[in-house]
């Protein structure tokens, strides 16, 4: 190698190195996001309210119910019927829009263990989104174990791919720090950007027992869109999860309760802990959906501290008597 060649290589390496460094700086300075994180959070909640306004403003003889509950042997039929009752997927998905779906894939377990959202339900929602005109449907979670094994073992990857959707493995670049203006215990946290950038965000938890939160359903499912070290979230959890719900408002919430885990949650692993109410609950408010979900375990919203907080802070209605509920066995 002569001196000139060495200089060329050194220069090339420097250029590559600098561009890499610049890329890192750009992410830190957030040049590319076209606005501050706080602005993004606000615009997000703005979108939600307009969507709701449009929906209620359309002349209808009867407004859609707050909650649609369907029971039946086939999980896919149940979820289709429930969403139809809420006004159909067209109410939530606009033609050519992007849809982001967040199931619960905490670890890799076969669907029978009720640790992860039922793949048939997720696949049905992906199909419905496409039928309503969605251009792209992405599905993601941030499992606590290796995402590839979790996606694969839970059966969700195969089901989503078969329905034409795309699984997403999240890396650093999918998260950005979001301010939580009204946060009591949590004032900012890195969250998945797709939740805010997608035209429709669908929260698709499974109902199951949780050692600390008592039950994990829609609100607790939002922990999966959080980046960083999530271990410390467990202190003052009942406030933090409500703080998060003030900025992340899914357009549609579908609680899978075809199988539920009644003990040893949230990871379970024993069929003895699984019951099968064969139910799905759909709505637009996480606290309302969770309040109904609690009844499947013989509890009420008053038994869950985070739902009490949510009610007090006006995040959603948890008193089932105040909600219009459309219940049916398919």
């Amino acid at each position, binding site marked *: 190698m002569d001196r000139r060649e060495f200089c060329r290589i050194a220069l090339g390496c420097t250029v590559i190195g600098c561009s890499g460094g610049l890329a890192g700086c750009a992410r830190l300075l957030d040049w590319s996001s076209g606005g501050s994180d706080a602005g993004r959070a606000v615009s997000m909640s703005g979108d939600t309210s307009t969507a709701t306004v449009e929906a209620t403003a359309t002349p209808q003889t009867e407004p859609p119910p707050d909650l649609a509950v369907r029971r039946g042997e086939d999980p896919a039929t149940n979820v289709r019927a429930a969403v139809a009752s809420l006004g159909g997927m067209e109410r939530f998905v606009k033609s050519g829009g992007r849809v982001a779906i967040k199931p619960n894939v905490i670890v890799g377990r076969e669907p029978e263990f009720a640790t992860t959202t039922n793949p048939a339900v997720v696949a049905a929602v992906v199909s419905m989104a496409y039928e309503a005109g969605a251009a792209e449907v992405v599905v993601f979670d941030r499992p606590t174990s*290796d995402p590839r094994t979790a996606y694969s073992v839970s059966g969700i990857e195969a089901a989503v791919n078969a329905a034409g959707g795309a699984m997403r*493995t999240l890396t650093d670049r999918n998260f950005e720090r979001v301010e939580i203006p009204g946060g009591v215990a949590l004032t900012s946290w890195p969250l998945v950007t797709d939740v805010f950038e997608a035209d429709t965000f669908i929260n698709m938890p499974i109902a199951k027992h949780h050692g600390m939160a008592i039950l994990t359903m829609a609100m607790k499912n939002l922990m999966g869109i959080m980046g960083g070290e999530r271990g410390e979230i467990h202190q003052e959890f009942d406030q933090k999860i409500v703080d998060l719900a003030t900025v992340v408002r899914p357009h549609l919430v579908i609680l899978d309760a075809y199988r539920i885990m009644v003990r040893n949650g949230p990871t379970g692993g024993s069929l003895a802990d699984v019951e099968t109410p064969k139910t799905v609950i759909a709505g637009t408010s996480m606290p309302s959906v969770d309040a109904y979900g609690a009844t499947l375990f013989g509890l009420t919203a008053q038994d869950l501290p985070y739902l009490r907080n949510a009610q007090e802070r006006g995040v959603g209605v948890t008193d089932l008597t105040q909600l219009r509920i459309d219940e049916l066995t398919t």
Partner: protein
Amino acid sequence: MAARERKGLHRYRRWSQLAFLALFLGLLALTVWPLGNVFLGSFLVADPLVAINSLVNGVLRVEMWLALVVLVAPLFLGRAFCGYVCPMGTLIEWTSTAKRRIGLSESARDVWRRMPTIVLLFVAGLLLFGTGAYLVFDPLTTATRAATTLLFPAIDRTVRLAGDIAYLAPPLRGAVDSVTTALSGRIIYAEPRVYGLALLVLGMLALMLAASLVERRFWCRHLCPLGALFGLVGRGAIRGRVVDAEACISCGKCEQVCPLDAVRDGYRATDTSRCQMCMKCADVCPADAISTAARPRRSLYTPSRRAFLTAGGAGLLAGFFTFTGLSRRTPDRYLVRPPGARDESAFLALCTRCGQCMKVCPSNVLQPSLSKSGIEGLFTPELDYRVGSCDWNCAECGKVCPSSAIRPLELETKRKTVIGRAYIDTARCIPWTDYRTCLVCQELCPIPDKAIVLTEETVSRPEGEPITIKRPHVIEKRCIGCGVCETHCPVPREAAIRVRGRSG
């Protein structure tokens, strides 16, 4: 002199090297969860040094016929493995392009030419005392280890960086996410791959390559234990390089170009323990005097009794002191071996230090060990729970182990295999010492019955007022030591729940 047309199969030597290097890296790249039915560890199973080590330690595998073929090949082909197949040899040859070399004096060269014999005797000494530590220097384990801890992590980081740059342009983001997902768990990982001791591996590799500054392919010539083993067989070569003594004009060109220093006795004879049949000598011979034929004229180094005893004795001594070392009696308390690993002493004897288990591990928890089981344990796999934990859905490490130091386990068996046991450090655990809620270890415990249970206790805090709080306990009978609890424990730096190794 104008380049002459080369004849014979050796014309395609470069292509053969390239093909085997690509095959080697390709198979290793495919060594990820979940393993299919393709047998990916072919190179290491075909390694006669690994096979002999396994046999001596009582492990016989059907695939070893491959190693037998490779082992007897030098009778007919010389050390063709070194020049046509070995990925390490290829790497050393291709980087060995220095124009000026330090060179050896006549007397030094005589000493170095004895090295392969000494290396073999030393290996035999270690082998006798049941340590596989010398396999660290096997070229195939070295190449596997270097690719696992250096090359693939570098690719991971490079692809990520490229993705980060592309992500700056919003229109490209969807494509970047798709590619990331497609490569995830294969080439790139949600958390980038990281291996301890990468610098040590790099340093070792650099020394092997840099040795070529002394003489061309210095490592291959004198130090490689696998090369030495081939040389041992090659001593009895039936076929090899022959020189037409009548035609030879004693120009010495063949000796100059020979990469492995195999030309002897006025160019007419061959050290068949070294010749790799690359036939560079034939290509440069102006008299066309060199070819291959049966019964080559051999010139071999035979160790004197003194050399024999010195080398063998040194090996025996090294083996004896490893065998009786402190670490053999009490390995480090935090040393945890992969599920399916044999008892520590058998493990140390069998493990090839190749790192294929670390390559396949989806959680990156398998890491090269530095000294937890003494110096002979260098580069053997251990679980480092700061990086990850043993995945409930994976039992692949035993399937790729070339010597079954880690026995292959069915997934259901692996889930019941105890590799260690978690202990709670109540002086640092959040509910125990800070009186605040935390149950990360319990919620993520993958054992169906939960090896960690919470008890509700009413205790009085140092400030005075009592508090009711849930505190975790480990149930000894249920814990298998997978370490999910330790990995996710939110206590910074050192987890408040730690897995310790099992006995035996």
